[in-house]
């Protein structure tokens, strides 16, 4: 058991190591280095020399990689080019803002998804299921920027209930954030809930058809007791991994949502740093977002392992 957990953590670390290699090699192989890309037309003479000196681009690539990697492990991402300030200082408030947005969305999304999933599964192919399933399919398939734009158009412009665009500095306090994030949270949790609700639905339907549930029905266990005692615990277990994948997948979608609402989180930083051609920040973002992805998956795998006694004796899922 302990060995399995250690092995799983090891695999995660190897993945992160490869990610760091990919981002480093990618930036190295694509045309233009950090300095020429950033300075564009002014990339000559003294400006170029100082930039190369500052980033240490005059030493061989593998030395730079080792240097960069050992700094990253110690939690130091170096300096950003555009603001000329430590990347950690740039990232700090953005990470906090994105965390607030993500955790509020998850806190709303997961319980809602479970409830909707159960309703659609128990009333399978009846009116509630057909209605909810149609809505989930719509919100799942429509791109984030469209649902966000429509939300702004309907709620903010036509109804005038909420501000359409978030106008807050990136170092706003938690309470300042809360009143402004209603629409972004709705936009994000809509898609997340839809994905998870569909997953919960099919999982519950599968468990309902299993032998032990049939047995419970034959034994005369009351319907709701059967649902809560026998079906749900078994149905929600496989959902954990999917929930993790969905959250991780949303990292990409959050970028777009943050841009639409002008929300000062990690996602908008992605766009800003790429528009500014600030490669050191892009590299740092790649590592951070990949770590979040690997971390979420790791937690999901460990949770499944803890909660499912059958898996303890088995080889871990690849």
């Amino acid at each position: 058991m302990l060995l399995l957990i250690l092995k799983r953590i090891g695999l995660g670390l190897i993945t992160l190591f490869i990610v760091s290699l990919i981002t480093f090699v990618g930036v190295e192989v694509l045309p233009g280095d950090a300095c020429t890309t950033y300075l564009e037309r002014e990339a000559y003479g003294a400006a170029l020399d100082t930039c190369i000196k500052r980033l240490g681009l005059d030493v061989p690539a593998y030395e730079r990689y080792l240097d960069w990697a050992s700094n990253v492990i110690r939690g130091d991402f170096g300096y950003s080019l555009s603001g000329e300030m430590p990347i950690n200082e740039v990232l700090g408030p953005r990470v906090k803002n994105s965390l607030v947005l993500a955790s509020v969305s998850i806190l709303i999304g997961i319980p809602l998804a479970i409830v909707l999933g159960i309703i659609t599964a128990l009333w399978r192919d009846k009116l509630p299921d057909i209605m909810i399933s149609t809505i989930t399919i719509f919100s799942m398939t429509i791109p984030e920027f469209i649902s966000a734009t429509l939300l702004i158009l309907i709620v903010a412009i036509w109804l005038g209930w909420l501000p359409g665009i978030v106008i807050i500095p990136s170092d706003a306090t938690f309470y300042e954030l809360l009143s402004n994030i209603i629409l972004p949270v709705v936009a994000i949790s809509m898609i997340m809930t839809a994905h998870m609700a569909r997953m919960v639905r099919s999982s519950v339907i599968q468990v309902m058809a299993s032998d032990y549930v049939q047995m419970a029905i034959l034994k005369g266990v009351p319907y709701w007791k059967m649902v809560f005692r026998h079906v749900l615990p078994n149905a929600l277990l496989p959902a954990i991994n999917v929930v993790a994948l969905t959250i991780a997948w949303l990292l990409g979608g959050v970028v777009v949502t943050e841009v639409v609402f002008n929300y000062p989180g990690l996602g908008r930083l992605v766009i800003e740093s790429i528009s500014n051609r600030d490669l050191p920040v892009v590299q740092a973002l790649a590592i951070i977002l990949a770590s979040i992805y690997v971390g979420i998956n790791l937690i999901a795998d460990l949770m499944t392992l803890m909660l499912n006694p059958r898996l303890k004796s088995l080889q871990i899922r690849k």
Partner: protein
Amino acid sequence: MESNLITEDKQKNKLEKVFEILKTMASRPSGLIGLSIVLFHIVLALISPYIAPYDYKAISPNTMLLAPSAEHWFGTDSLGRDVFTRTILGGRTALTVTFFGSLIALLWGGLLGIFCGLVGGKIDDVVMRVVDAFLSIPWILAMLLIVSLLGTSTEVLIPALGFFYGKGIVRVARAATHDVIAKDFIVSARARGHSNMSIIWNEIIPNVRDAILVEGAMRWSWMLLGFSSLSFLGFGVSPPTPDWGLMISNARGLMSFAYWSVIAPIVGLSSLIIGINLTADAFAKALGIDRSTKAPV
């Protein structure tokens, strides 16, 4: 003579099978709706240059932000361009890029997955670790970086999208190969002394094809979503080419009074994505593959 007959027979069977699948897909209302939407968009993309009433890039200060009328069915945008013209033309680039992108994704993802599943061992381990690593980098970050350094031409977008949406297919193809590989007919093909290539081509591909095709159809809709997101962010199609993502992002600032120029491309893009999704779902059901328990990867 006899072998000729057999191949003819096979071909006829194939056509019949395709027809059968289409019929099963259309027998459910959602499949029928999906198929007709996709068909409509493909036909529209083919004929739209001939039926467009205005020039898509004709700028005119006299016709700025006109409300929908008899001359301009969907109104005009902030540069005075006809929104109806731009909307019916807006899917052409997206459809072309994502179609060829999905084809590339299917090919390299499917073949690499089958290869890894068949060979196993060290090679498989290494490849899967690298695929995992690529999966954990958000696609949007990687795409944005590539596009900002290499440019936004279709020659860059198609292979880049094809590459980034193919890595998930590797896992699906590998898993499907694992399911097939223990079956008796593979063992007997091995015993007959067939090479790996021959086993892949004759035994494995016919058996994993359905799973990979369904995955590819699904990827197509995700790639369309990804491509329009890039356009929306200003990293996809470059103006003045009409594209739904770009049109939405341009019209967004003025939607408080000129909502028509944002609604039209929204309807275009959403209907196509929903259509492809419904079709992919119906396709999976017609082939008897359950996708409902899968998360987006």
